[in-house]
């Protein structure tokens, strides 16, 4: 039996927390349990006794994609009642959580995509874990959840989280700077049309396009200055309701990643149709503005003191858990479809206004960017 090299131990809330940085599993234990761990690894006689543990794991992104992805109950007041385990029960629990491992080969096989909704053996990527948690564990329909974790119930505002403190706080002044009155904009994958309306508010003529009938219905209920919304199979076939060369600008937010890393193994992820279509819709010299979760830090555990955050990055190039393509993949792919990169920004909180609501999140996002904004220009 071994302790995988990715099992960390840190002291939080007055107890030791054992944490597998890859599996994102955790158990809080009293100090005596550490002696059991050591005896197991050294193949020595396990000290018999009773050990207090707290089950501190929870699917922390069930409250939102931008919420703390560490999967720990951070406040001691949220911890469940302690459990008293024998040495054998403790070892069994540690093994169940991959904090110790008997069969390393079987352990490594768990880092594969899930094969079905009820595949709890393979860890799968974040999308799969989220879908499984919402559907099979919480029995929540992910489609309205997806909107609800970002927008207020009436869809006219953004909830008090990093979407607001980082994304919206950056994009509102960005659109005011970047969009000239009368410009034609296509918002690809516009969802319920929140940013479409913001761009229309800057004087643009906006067409919002999305494949979801539910989102289109909600988008059309928008404010009086509402842009036009059309439904299309974005990325699967051309958006031919938009004429060649019509757009001065194409905007796409939190959606391009799906064309690199699919939500489900059965889906095809191929950005070629989409990028050729964006190129077609733009006038010569038109801009393609891409706002996406940051290639490196989105979903990395938020460890350390909120004022001195650090993280453990378990992957970058080969995504097993992650859902954002490496920066090179995004840039090379887009540029390969007839675009030049003309701008790049990493987004941080605009000010300290979110600290009162989410000190850990805002502290982390102040050091590690949650989004990247890429500006491309159409060549030829």
């Amino acid at each position, binding site marked *: 039996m071994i302790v995988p090299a990715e099992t960390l131990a840190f002291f939080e809330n007055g107890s030791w927390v054992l944490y597998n940085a890859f599996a994102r599993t955790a158990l809080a234990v009293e100090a005596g349990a550490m002696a059991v761990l050591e005896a197991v690894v050294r193949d020595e006689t396990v000290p018999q006794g009773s050990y207090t543990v707290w089950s501190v794991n929870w699917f922390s992104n069930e409250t939102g994609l931008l919420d703390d992805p560490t999967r720990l109950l951070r406040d001691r007041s949220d911890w469940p009642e302690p459990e008293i385990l024998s040495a054998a029960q403790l070892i069994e629990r540690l093994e169940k959580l991959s904090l110790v491992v008997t069969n390393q080969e079987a352990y490594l096989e768990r880092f594969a995509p899930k*094969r079905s*909704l009820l595949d709890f053996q393979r860890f799968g990527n974040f999308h799969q874990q989220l879908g499984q948690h919402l559907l099979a564990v919480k029995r929540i329909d992910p489609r309205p959840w997806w909107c609800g974790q970002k927008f207020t119930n009436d869809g006219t505002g953004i909830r008090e989280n990093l979407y607001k403190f980082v994304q919206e706080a950056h994009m509102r002044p960005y659109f005011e700077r970047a969009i000239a009155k009368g410009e034609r904009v296509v918002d690809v994958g516009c969802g319920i049309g929140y940013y479409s309306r913001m761009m229309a508010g800057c004087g643009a003529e906006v067409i919002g396009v999305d494949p979801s009938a539910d989102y289109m219905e909600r988008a059309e209920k928008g404010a009086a200055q509402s842009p036009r919304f059309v439904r299309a199979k974005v990325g699967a076939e051309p958006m031919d309701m938009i004429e060649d060369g019509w757009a001065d600008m194409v905007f796409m937010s939190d959606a391009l990643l799906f064309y690199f890393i699919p939500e489900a193994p059965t889906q095809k992820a191929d950005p070629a149709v989409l990028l050729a279509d964006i190129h077609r819709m733009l006038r010569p010299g038109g801009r393609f503005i891409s706002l996406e979760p940051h290639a490196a830090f989105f979903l990395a555990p938020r460890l350390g003191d909120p004022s001195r955050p650090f993280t453990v990055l378990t992957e970058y190039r080969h995504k097993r858990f992650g859902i954002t393509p490496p920066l090179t993949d995004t840039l090379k792919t887009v540029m390969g479809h007839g675009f030049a990169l003309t701008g790049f920004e990493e987004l941080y909180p605009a000010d300290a206004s979110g600290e009162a609501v989410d000190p850990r999140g805002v502290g982390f996002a102040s050091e590690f960017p949650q989004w990247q904004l890429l500006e491309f220009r159409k060549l030829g």
Partner: protein
Amino acid sequence: MGAAQEFVLAYLEKFNPVPGADAEAKLAYDFLDAGHIDSFETMQMILTIEDHFKIRFQEEHLQSDDIRTVGGLAAIIEHLAAGGAKA
């Protein structure tokens, strides 16, 4: 074939034929790993079964290996319907 087995088979057959030369082979069919139905369809089937048999699957059932096959799922249904855990 029991009522639960017939119900599960008929449900899956609505999407695609369930492979297997005889009843035994059909009951051993791992419809989850085979990708017979997608995630939403799997959840819809769970809810339909719960409604039909007036049962409620617990996390331990959804996480068990038995639920992966037609026969295994039917056995869980029968266990719950016999009083394992009422809705």
